[in-house]
């Protein structure tokens, strides 16, 4: 992406975030039962969406890497995993706060929460595996393989956790609330803002990886010529 487009995207992202925050905190009325706490929902859902999207991008770029062996795709999957991990952490944190206010305890083994937690663990494992390998080609191949295997697990995790919870009926249903038009508009804008933020961050983190790679290569050349 050209520098100019990067700036334009950055400004659009910033404006959307401001607009979304305006809608969330001033425009949209608070939910009747839950009150002000419910507003965390707009951040929570949007972050979850980006978290899952980021994992999907890891999956796609991992496949692309194994097909082409172009290191660009490795940078993309690594960058996407890094951003996805941050967003998934936001999901867990906001979910916890919401749960504390709504259910009275910080954590319940609700299907969505559990799936997010497991996904977060898979991301962490992916990043740990990357940091454990120094050889570049090997790191790229191994993490691509894990990126694919990890993504396949997501639907299985979802089904298993959902069935698990239907066996235990004492759990309250989460996320069931009547959404008004104002709420859905706010949510859409919030999701858009988060997605734009992701789109803005991704090429930058990729660039970091690229620069890192260039430094490594230059270093190798210098050492060889000493």
């Amino acid at each position, binding site marked *: 992406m050209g520098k100019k487009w990067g700036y334009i995207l950055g400004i659009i992202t910033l404006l959307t975030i401001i607009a979304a925050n305006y809608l969330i905190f001033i425009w949209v009325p608070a939910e009747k039962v839950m009150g002000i706490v419910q507003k965390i929902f707009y951040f929570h859902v949007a972050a979850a969406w980006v978290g899952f999207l980021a994992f999907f991008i890891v999956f796609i770029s991992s496949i692309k890497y*194994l097909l082409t062996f172009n290191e660009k795709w490795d940078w993309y999957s690594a960058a996407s995993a890094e951003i996805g991990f941050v967003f998934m952490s936001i999901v867990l944190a906001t979910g916890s706060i919401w749960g504390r206010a709504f259910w009275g305890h910080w954590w319940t083994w609700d299907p969505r929460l559990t799936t997010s937690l497991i996904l977060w663990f898979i991301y962490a494992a992916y990043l*740990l*595996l990357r940091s*454990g390998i120094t050889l570049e080609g090997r790191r790229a191949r*191994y993490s691509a393989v894990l990126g694919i295997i990890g993504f396949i697990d997501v639907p299985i995790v979802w089904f298993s956790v959902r069935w698990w919870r239907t066996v235990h009926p004492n759990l309250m249903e989460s996320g069931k609330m009547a959404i008004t038009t104002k709420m859905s508009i706010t949510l859409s804008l919030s999701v858009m803002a988060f997605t734009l933020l992701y789109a803005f961050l991704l090429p930058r983190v990729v660039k970091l990886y690229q620069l890192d790679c260039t430094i490594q290569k230059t270093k190798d050349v210098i050492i060889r010529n000493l």
Partner: protein
Amino acid sequence: MKFAKIIYAMLCKDFKAEFRRKEILSSMLFFSLLIVVIINVTLNINKDILFENFTGLMWIVFLFTGVLGINRSFINERINDSYLGINLAVGESSIILVSKAVSNLAFIGIVQTIVIPLFFILFSVKWPQNAFLFLLVNFLGTTGFVFLGTFLSVLTINTNSEILLPIVLFPLLLPLVLAVVQASNLILKGAPLQLWGHWLGLILVFDFLYTLVPILLFDFVVEV
């Protein structure tokens, strides 16, 4: 048939090496016994709660013990470059993965044949009526665990960190463990198939996917 022959030869080789080295099997066995003792000592729970959590406790033992053995499986092949020798002799790298997984399954199976009855005895739980189904579900669960674990161990032994395998493996394994524990718990209570059939389905899907995908991807991780 060539396929089965190679797997059999590899299995014999792994057993022969194990009986000379006495490394994996004995440590797995003693480790699992130790965890059983630790569970007994640390948990002070009544019989009903224990019965509810029986299969779960059993699988905690299997996971920690299994990961010990699986972690070693390819490390020994790196000594004297013996992996290269195997690869030259076999020719097809995915067969090596399958046969390594089969050997691991055999090792863990041996440990399980000792630990499962011991669990029933030490926790004084009655042996289930349909023991065959109970063992079958546990075997299917172990199969998925061992295949995915063997494959991922190839990734993790080539890193700087020895304890990476459980960190990478366990999150992926959670749905399988959940399914096995739920299904075998229901079998233990004598529940009919309708109540745990979907769990069995999930185990089979998991086993199928995580046998097939590693075989397809193994060429990318193998280092000659």
